[in-house]
């Protein structure tokens, strides 16, 4: 195991969480008012169990990306604590692949930074590309790949970090509907195969319901946990499944109620 960045060490007998977020608040300096602070996240407490798939759902301004950055360790919370089982991997809305490297080399760089020895890297990169079904893509440059393929390479690169927790910041939002659908199935497939924990941020209700075991709705300005649903429908699901559709309608209602609250004041 990698040594942990923020919390549970190797001596901890059994880690009961992939991420533990306790009473986390985050404020940023408010623009325009000197010294003023704008509260973005307010008292968030959330556990992601090992192997669990959780989606964070919310309208814009709910601070869901901010929360993900905090969990990734790219920023520090103003209050509260975040512990993760090892350093989490993070996937962005943009593929964030390095254009000066081929698809395979992008993955190898992640392996190298993780400390994998040189002779093993090539084979491991090929294996990961195989996992996202991009067997022939090792030597391809990023610009030669389609949007869907780029996100799959980015997924493979995130998997190369060998983290217990995968953070995803609207990773499929920029894709067209066909590709998004395919990548949903791919992600579900990988999640079930690897036993990873996933914390997935989105503003798309159906996406949240289709993928997750648990959907967490955040209210906006400041972001607070408004409600939670457990999705009982077994995987693999289809967006057209009636149980998925019913729950999506219910969550959409709740989301709209949250958004309307902001129009009143």
């Amino acid at each position, binding site marked *: 195991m990698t040594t942990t960045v923020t919390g549970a060490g190797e001596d901890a007998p059994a880690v009961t969480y992939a991420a533990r977020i306790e009473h986390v608040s985050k404020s940023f300096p408010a623009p325009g008012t000197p010294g003023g602070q704008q509260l973005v996240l307010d008292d968030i407490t959330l556990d992601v169990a090992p192997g669990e798939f959780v989606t964070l759902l919310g309208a814009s301004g709910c601070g869901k990306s901010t929360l993900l950055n905090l969990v990734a360790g790219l920023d520090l919370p103003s209050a509260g604590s975040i512990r993760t089982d090892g350093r989490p991997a993070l996937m962005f809305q943009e593929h964030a692949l390095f254009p000066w490297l081929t698809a395979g080399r992008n993955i190898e*760089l992640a392996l190298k930074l993780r400390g994998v020895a040189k002779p093993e890297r090539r084979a491991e990169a090929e294996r990961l590309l195989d996992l996202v*079904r991009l067997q022939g893509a090792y030597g391809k440059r990023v610009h030669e790949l*389609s949007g869907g*393929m780029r996100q799959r390479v980015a997924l493979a690169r995130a998997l190369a970090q060998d983290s217990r927790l995968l953070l995803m910041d609207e990773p499929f939002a920029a894709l067209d509907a066909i590709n998004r659908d395919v990548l949903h199935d791919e992600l579900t497939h990988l999640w079930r195969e690897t036993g990873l924990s996933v914390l997935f941020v989105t503003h798309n209700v159906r996406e949240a319901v289709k993928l997750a075991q648990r959907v967490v709705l955040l209210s906006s300005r400041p972001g607070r946990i408004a409600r939670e649903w457990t999705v009982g429908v077994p995987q*693999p699901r289809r967006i057209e499944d009636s149980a998925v559709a019913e729950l999506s309608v219910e969550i959409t209602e709740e989301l709209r109620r949250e958004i309307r609250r902001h129009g009143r004041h």
Partner: protein
Amino acid sequence: MAGTDTRVDTTKDGPSTAGDPRDTQELAGLEAGLDALESVPSGRTPLRETLVRKVLPPLTAVALVLVVWQLLVWAEVAPDYKLPAPSAVWDEVTDAWRQGTLLDYIWTSVSRGLLGFLMALAIGTPLGLLVARVTFVRAAVGPILSGLQSLPSVAWVPPAVLWLGLNNSMMYAVILLGAVPSIANGLVAGIEQIPPLFLRAGRTLGATGLREARHIVMPAALPGYLAGLKQGWAFSWRSLMAAEIIASSPDLGVGLGQLLENGRNNASMSQVFLAIFLILLVGIAIDLLIFSPLERRVLRGRGLLVTR
């Protein structure tokens, strides 16, 4: 008909059973199809097309200049000690070639220029990295560095002669003072243009400190850095010519700048023309043979090269 209905019902339940291999296969096939549909084949342009589009136009321009020049000579717009004929300059070339001095002139200057440039590279690169990444250094040295770029490097020749004397060290000093700011500034500009997303992605992968500089910052800044190198070479070459023209001494050997100065002293316009052409030619050749291919390679690899 009733049978078909029941089958529809089973397929509805079908996806719910975990790990259906048929489902996985379907997904693989779907992805393969999408990949094939959306990939754009990228190839290189054929040699013939490159020749017609890239080589022919400059050759035409050169030919045109020669024709106009010859016409001016025939029209006798100026006496031949002011405007020598192209053939007179060509005779200078063949003379120098026969005496074996032509390549000496060129090599004396080119070896100086390239060695000076390599030294400027070795100093300018870490300097640029420091200025771009360390806030204090940036505030302290940044403005001076950009200011130095606008100072003509000829201005450094007199102090360099006084400090170091008439020798090769003085030449290198002038080259360094001309080229180091360009190279450093190019790298700083390249680093400033790195999309923040790459830095965030690098940090999540665990690249910090020197590893970040080596694996993320330097490669991401490479296009800007190369532009800086290109300019750095141009500055090296110009500074060197200035130094060679002003500072002449028998132990220094005859470089192209010296050749130009000798032409003036001999009142030989054809020799002056020869020197100017050679200086121009070397500048263009180095750019064409080293920097342009390097730049194109980097840009093509990143899909940034816009053809046409």
